[in-house]
Protein backbone atom coordinates (compact mmCIF):
# COMPACT_ATOMS: atom_id res chain seq x y z
CA UNK A 1 0.00 0.00 0.00
CA UNK A 2 1.28 3.41 -0.96
CA UNK A 3 1.03 6.20 1.51
CA UNK A 4 0.32 9.58 -0.08
CA UNK A 5 2.59 12.37 0.99
CA UNK A 6 1.06 15.51 2.36
CA UNK A 7 1.32 18.29 -0.15
CA UNK A 8 3.43 21.18 1.12
CA UNK A 9 2.34 24.49 -0.30
CA UNK A 10 4.44 27.62 0.14
CA UNK A 11 2.47 30.77 -0.53
CA UNK A 12 3.20 34.42 0.09
CA UNK A 13 0.95 35.59 2.90
CA UNK A 14 -1.71 37.77 1.37
CA UNK A 15 -1.69 40.30 4.23
CA UNK A 16 1.82 41.40 3.14
CA UNK A 17 0.66 42.34 -0.37
CA UNK A 18 -0.17 45.90 0.66
CA UNK A 19 3.30 46.43 2.13
CA UNK A 20 5.02 44.90 -0.89
CA UNK A 21 3.02 47.04 -3.30
CA UNK A 22 3.77 50.20 -1.34
CA UNK A 23 7.51 49.48 -1.19
CA UNK A 24 7.63 48.77 -4.93
CA UNK A 25 5.78 52.02 -5.61
CA UNK A 26 8.29 54.05 -3.58
CA UNK A 27 11.19 52.19 -5.22
CA UNK A 28 10.02 53.13 -8.71
CA UNK A 29 9.24 56.71 -7.67
CA UNK A 30 12.85 57.12 -6.48
CA UNK A 31 14.19 55.49 -9.67
CA UNK A 32 12.10 57.84 -11.78
CA UNK A 33 13.82 60.84 -10.24
CA UNK A 34 16.22 61.21 -13.14
CA UNK A 35 17.17 64.73 -12.08
CA UNK A 36 18.95 63.49 -9.00
CA UNK A 37 21.94 65.74 -8.30
CA UNK A 38 22.44 64.92 -4.64
CA UNK A 39 26.04 63.81 -5.29
CA UNK A 40 27.09 67.33 -6.32
CA UNK A 41 29.00 69.22 -3.64
CA UNK A 42 28.00 72.88 -3.42
CA UNK A 43 27.00 75.51 -0.89
CA UNK A 44 24.23 77.95 -1.75
CA UNK A 45 24.74 81.70 -1.54
CA UNK A 46 22.63 83.62 0.97
CA UNK A 47 20.24 86.40 0.07
CA UNK A 48 17.29 87.99 1.82
CA UNK A 49 13.86 88.39 0.26
CA UNK A 50 13.72 85.05 -1.57
CA UNK A 51 10.68 82.92 -2.32
CA UNK A 52 9.70 79.28 -2.76
CA UNK A 53 10.69 77.92 -6.15
CA UNK A 54 8.27 76.03 -8.39
CA UNK A 55 9.12 72.60 -9.82
CA UNK A 56 12.06 72.65 -12.26
CA UNK A 57 12.23 71.27 -15.78
CA UNK A 58 16.02 71.04 -15.51
CA UNK A 59 18.71 71.75 -12.94
CA UNK A 60 22.09 73.26 -13.74
CA UNK A 61 24.73 73.16 -11.01
CA UNK A 62 28.22 74.56 -10.49
CA UNK A 63 30.04 72.65 -7.76
CA UNK A 64 32.91 73.45 -5.43
CA UNK A 65 35.37 72.51 -8.20
CA UNK A 66 33.54 74.92 -10.58
CA UNK A 67 32.45 72.11 -12.89
CA UNK A 68 29.08 72.48 -14.62
CA UNK A 69 26.37 69.80 -14.42
CA UNK A 70 23.03 69.43 -16.17
CA UNK A 71 20.62 67.23 -14.19
CA UNK A 72 23.54 65.67 -12.32
CA UNK A 73 25.68 64.92 -15.39
CA UNK A 74 28.85 66.88 -16.07
CA UNK A 75 28.67 69.08 -19.16
CA UNK A 76 30.80 71.75 -20.76
CA UNK A 77 29.28 75.28 -20.62
CA UNK A 78 29.77 75.45 -24.41
CA UNK A 79 27.37 72.52 -24.93
CA UNK A 80 24.89 73.58 -22.27
CA UNK A 81 22.63 75.75 -24.45
CA UNK A 82 22.07 72.96 -27.00
CA UNK A 83 21.47 70.33 -24.30
CA UNK A 84 19.02 72.59 -22.46
CA UNK A 85 17.16 73.35 -25.70
CA UNK A 86 16.65 69.58 -26.10
CA UNK A 87 15.47 69.18 -22.50
CA UNK A 88 13.06 72.10 -22.64
CA UNK A 89 11.88 71.19 -26.18
CA UNK A 90 8.30 72.42 -26.63
CA UNK A 91 7.57 73.02 -22.96
CA UNK A 92 5.04 75.86 -22.75
CA UNK A 93 5.99 79.23 -21.26
CA UNK A 94 5.66 79.35 -17.50
CA UNK A 95 6.78 75.74 -17.12
CA UNK A 96 10.32 76.24 -18.41
CA UNK A 97 11.91 76.67 -14.98
CA UNK A 98 15.62 75.94 -14.87
CA UNK A 99 17.15 75.79 -11.39
CA UNK A 100 20.65 77.24 -11.15
CA UNK A 101 22.67 76.00 -8.17
CA UNK A 102 25.91 77.93 -8.01
CA UNK A 103 28.52 77.36 -5.32
CA UNK A 104 28.76 80.54 -3.26
CA UNK A 105 32.47 81.06 -4.03
CA UNK A 106 32.08 80.87 -7.82
CA UNK A 107 33.22 83.83 -9.88
CA UNK A 108 31.63 85.54 -12.89
CA UNK A 109 33.89 83.63 -15.25
CA UNK A 110 32.18 80.40 -14.05
CA UNK A 111 28.51 81.39 -13.79
CA UNK A 112 28.01 84.03 -16.50
CA UNK A 113 28.43 81.65 -19.47
CA UNK A 114 25.96 79.29 -17.77
CA UNK A 115 23.39 82.07 -17.29
CA UNK A 116 23.86 83.09 -20.93
CA UNK A 117 23.29 79.46 -22.02
CA UNK A 118 20.05 79.21 -20.00
CA UNK A 119 18.91 82.48 -21.53
CA UNK A 120 19.80 81.25 -25.03
CA UNK A 121 17.78 78.06 -24.50
CA UNK A 122 14.77 80.14 -23.41
CA UNK A 123 14.68 78.83 -19.86
CA UNK A 124 13.13 80.68 -16.93
CA UNK A 125 16.08 81.13 -14.61
CA UNK A 126 15.67 80.47 -10.87
CA UNK A 127 18.73 80.96 -8.67
CA UNK A 128 18.60 78.44 -5.79
CA UNK A 129 19.63 80.26 -2.62
CA UNK A 130 19.45 80.08 1.13
CA UNK A 131 17.53 82.71 3.11
CA UNK A 132 19.85 85.07 4.97
CA UNK A 133 19.69 84.61 8.73
CA UNK A 134 17.88 87.55 10.26
CA UNK A 135 19.83 89.33 13.00
CA UNK A 136 17.68 89.15 16.12
CA UNK A 137 19.26 92.31 17.59
CA UNK A 138 17.83 95.05 15.43
Amino acid at each position, binding site marked *: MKLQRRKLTASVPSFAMGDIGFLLLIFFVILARSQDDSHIQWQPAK*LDDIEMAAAPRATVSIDTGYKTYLDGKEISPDNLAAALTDVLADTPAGERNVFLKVHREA*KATHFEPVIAAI*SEAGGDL*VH*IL*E*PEEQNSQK
Partner: protein
Amino acid sequence: MKLNRGKMLVDPPACASSDIAFTLIIFFLVCAAVQPETGMSQALPKTESQTEKRDQSQNLEVSITPSSIVLNGSPLNLENFTKRIAAELKKKTREADRIVVVKSAPDTPYPIWLGVSQAIDQAGGILTLELETEKTITVE
Protein backbone atom coordinates in the same frame (compact mmCIF):
# COMPACT_ATOMS: atom_id res chain seq x y z
CA MET B 1 -19.61 29.03 38.81
CA LYS B 2 -18.30 31.88 36.62
CA LEU B 3 -16.80 31.14 33.25
CA ASN B 4 -13.83 33.28 32.17
CA ARG B 5 -14.39 34.97 28.82
CA GLY B 6 -11.67 34.86 26.21
CA LYS B 7 -9.60 38.03 25.83
CA MET B 8 -11.05 40.39 23.21
CA LEU B 9 -7.86 42.41 22.61
CA VAL B 10 -6.25 41.70 19.26
CA ASP B 11 -2.57 42.60 18.92
CA PRO B 12 -1.14 43.37 15.50
CA PRO B 13 1.05 40.48 14.39
CA ALA B 14 4.59 41.00 15.67
CA CYS B 15 6.10 39.73 12.43
CA ALA B 16 4.74 42.82 10.63
CA SER B 17 6.46 45.35 12.88
CA SER B 18 9.73 45.25 10.92
CA ASP B 19 7.80 45.88 7.69
CA ILE B 20 6.03 48.81 9.30
CA ALA B 21 9.30 50.31 10.60
CA PHE B 22 10.99 49.91 7.20
CA THR B 23 8.07 51.53 5.41
CA LEU B 24 8.09 54.44 7.85
CA ILE B 25 11.85 54.96 7.34
CA ILE B 26 11.42 55.10 3.56
CA PHE B 27 8.42 57.41 3.89
CA PHE B 28 10.38 59.93 5.98
CA LEU B 29 13.46 59.64 3.71
CA VAL B 30 11.35 60.48 0.66
CA CYS B 31 9.69 63.37 2.53
CA ALA B 32 13.14 64.77 3.42
CA ALA B 33 14.43 64.40 -0.14
CA VAL B 34 11.60 66.30 -1.79
CA GLN B 35 11.57 69.32 0.52
CA PRO B 36 10.88 72.51 -1.50
CA GLU B 37 13.75 74.79 -2.46
CA THR B 38 13.97 78.54 -2.13
CA GLY B 39 15.39 80.94 -4.63
CA MET B 40 15.11 84.04 -6.77
CA SER B 41 13.59 83.91 -10.23
CA GLN B 42 15.09 86.17 -12.82
CA ALA B 43 13.68 87.23 -16.16
CA LEU B 44 16.35 87.31 -18.83
CA PRO B 45 15.78 88.36 -22.42
CA LYS B 46 16.55 85.54 -24.85
CA THR B 47 20.13 85.75 -26.08
CA GLU B 48 20.42 86.59 -29.75
CA SER B 49 23.35 85.32 -31.72
CA GLN B 50 23.17 88.28 -34.08
CA THR B 51 24.04 91.70 -32.75
CA GLU B 52 20.95 93.84 -32.60
CA LYS B 53 21.21 97.27 -34.08
CA ARG B 54 19.64 99.55 -31.53
CA ASP B 55 20.39 102.76 -29.80
CA GLN B 56 22.37 101.60 -26.81
CA SER B 57 23.19 105.08 -25.58
CA GLN B 58 19.85 105.15 -23.71
CA ASN B 59 20.56 101.99 -21.71
CA LEU B 60 21.93 102.08 -18.21
CA GLU B 61 25.32 100.44 -17.84
CA VAL B 62 26.54 98.71 -14.72
CA SER B 63 30.06 97.39 -14.20
CA ILE B 64 30.69 95.03 -11.31
CA THR B 65 34.09 94.29 -9.82
CA PRO B 66 34.86 92.49 -6.53
CA SER B 67 35.30 95.86 -4.80
CA SER B 68 32.88 98.23 -6.52
CA ILE B 69 29.67 98.70 -8.46
CA VAL B 70 29.80 101.37 -11.16
CA LEU B 71 26.56 102.80 -12.55
CA ASN B 72 27.06 104.96 -15.66
CA GLY B 73 30.57 105.84 -14.51
CA SER B 74 29.82 106.53 -10.81
CA PRO B 75 31.20 104.04 -8.27
CA LEU B 76 28.65 103.14 -5.56
CA ASN B 77 28.15 100.66 -2.77
CA LEU B 78 25.20 98.22 -2.96
CA GLU B 79 22.91 100.35 -0.77
CA ASN B 80 23.42 103.50 -2.82
CA PHE B 81 23.29 101.53 -6.06
CA THR B 82 19.84 100.18 -5.11
CA LYS B 83 18.55 103.73 -4.57
CA ARG B 84 20.19 105.17 -7.69
CA ILE B 85 19.03 102.41 -10.05
CA ALA B 86 15.46 102.71 -8.75
CA ALA B 87 15.55 106.50 -9.33
CA GLU B 88 17.06 106.13 -12.81
CA LEU B 89 14.55 103.47 -13.91
CA LYS B 90 11.63 105.54 -12.66
CA LYS B 91 12.41 108.07 -15.39
CA LYS B 92 12.20 105.42 -18.12
CA THR B 93 8.76 104.97 -19.60
CA ARG B 94 9.45 102.68 -22.58
CA GLU B 95 10.26 99.03 -21.90
CA ALA B 96 13.20 99.15 -24.30
CA ASP B 97 14.80 101.87 -22.19
CA ARG B 98 14.56 99.74 -19.03
CA ILE B 99 17.34 97.45 -20.24
CA VAL B 100 20.31 97.49 -17.89
CA VAL B 101 23.55 96.24 -19.42
CA VAL B 102 25.65 94.45 -16.80
CA LYS B 103 29.32 93.82 -17.35
CA SER B 104 31.19 91.87 -14.68
CA ALA B 105 34.89 91.50 -14.07
CA PRO B 106 35.91 87.82 -14.40
CA ASP B 107 36.63 87.56 -10.66
CA THR B 108 33.30 89.03 -9.50
CA PRO B 109 31.92 86.81 -6.68
CA TYR B 110 28.46 85.31 -7.13
CA PRO B 111 26.90 86.90 -3.99
CA ILE B 112 27.84 90.43 -5.17
CA TRP B 113 26.48 89.72 -8.65
CA LEU B 114 23.26 88.43 -7.08
CA GLY B 115 22.84 91.56 -4.95
CA VAL B 116 23.19 93.79 -8.02
CA SER B 117 20.83 91.71 -10.16
CA GLN B 118 18.24 91.64 -7.35
CA ALA B 119 18.41 95.43 -7.07
CA ILE B 120 17.91 95.80 -10.85
CA ASP B 121 15.03 93.31 -10.82
CA GLN B 122 13.25 94.99 -7.91
CA ALA B 123 13.63 98.41 -9.59
CA GLY B 124 11.88 97.04 -12.68
CA GLY B 125 14.93 96.85 -14.91
CA ILE B 126 15.61 94.19 -17.54
CA LEU B 127 19.04 92.72 -16.91
CA THR B 128 21.19 91.99 -19.95
CA LEU B 129 24.62 90.46 -19.72
CA GLU B 130 27.53 91.75 -21.71
CA LEU B 131 29.96 88.89 -22.05
CA GLU B 132 33.52 89.06 -23.21
CA THR B 133 34.02 86.94 -26.30
CA GLU B 134 37.28 85.49 -27.47
CA LYS B 135 38.18 85.58 -31.14
CA THR B 136 41.16 83.88 -32.68
CA ILE B 137 42.63 85.86 -35.54
CA THR B 138 45.18 84.17 -37.74
CA VAL B 139 47.72 86.54 -39.20
CA GLU B 140 49.31 85.31 -42.40
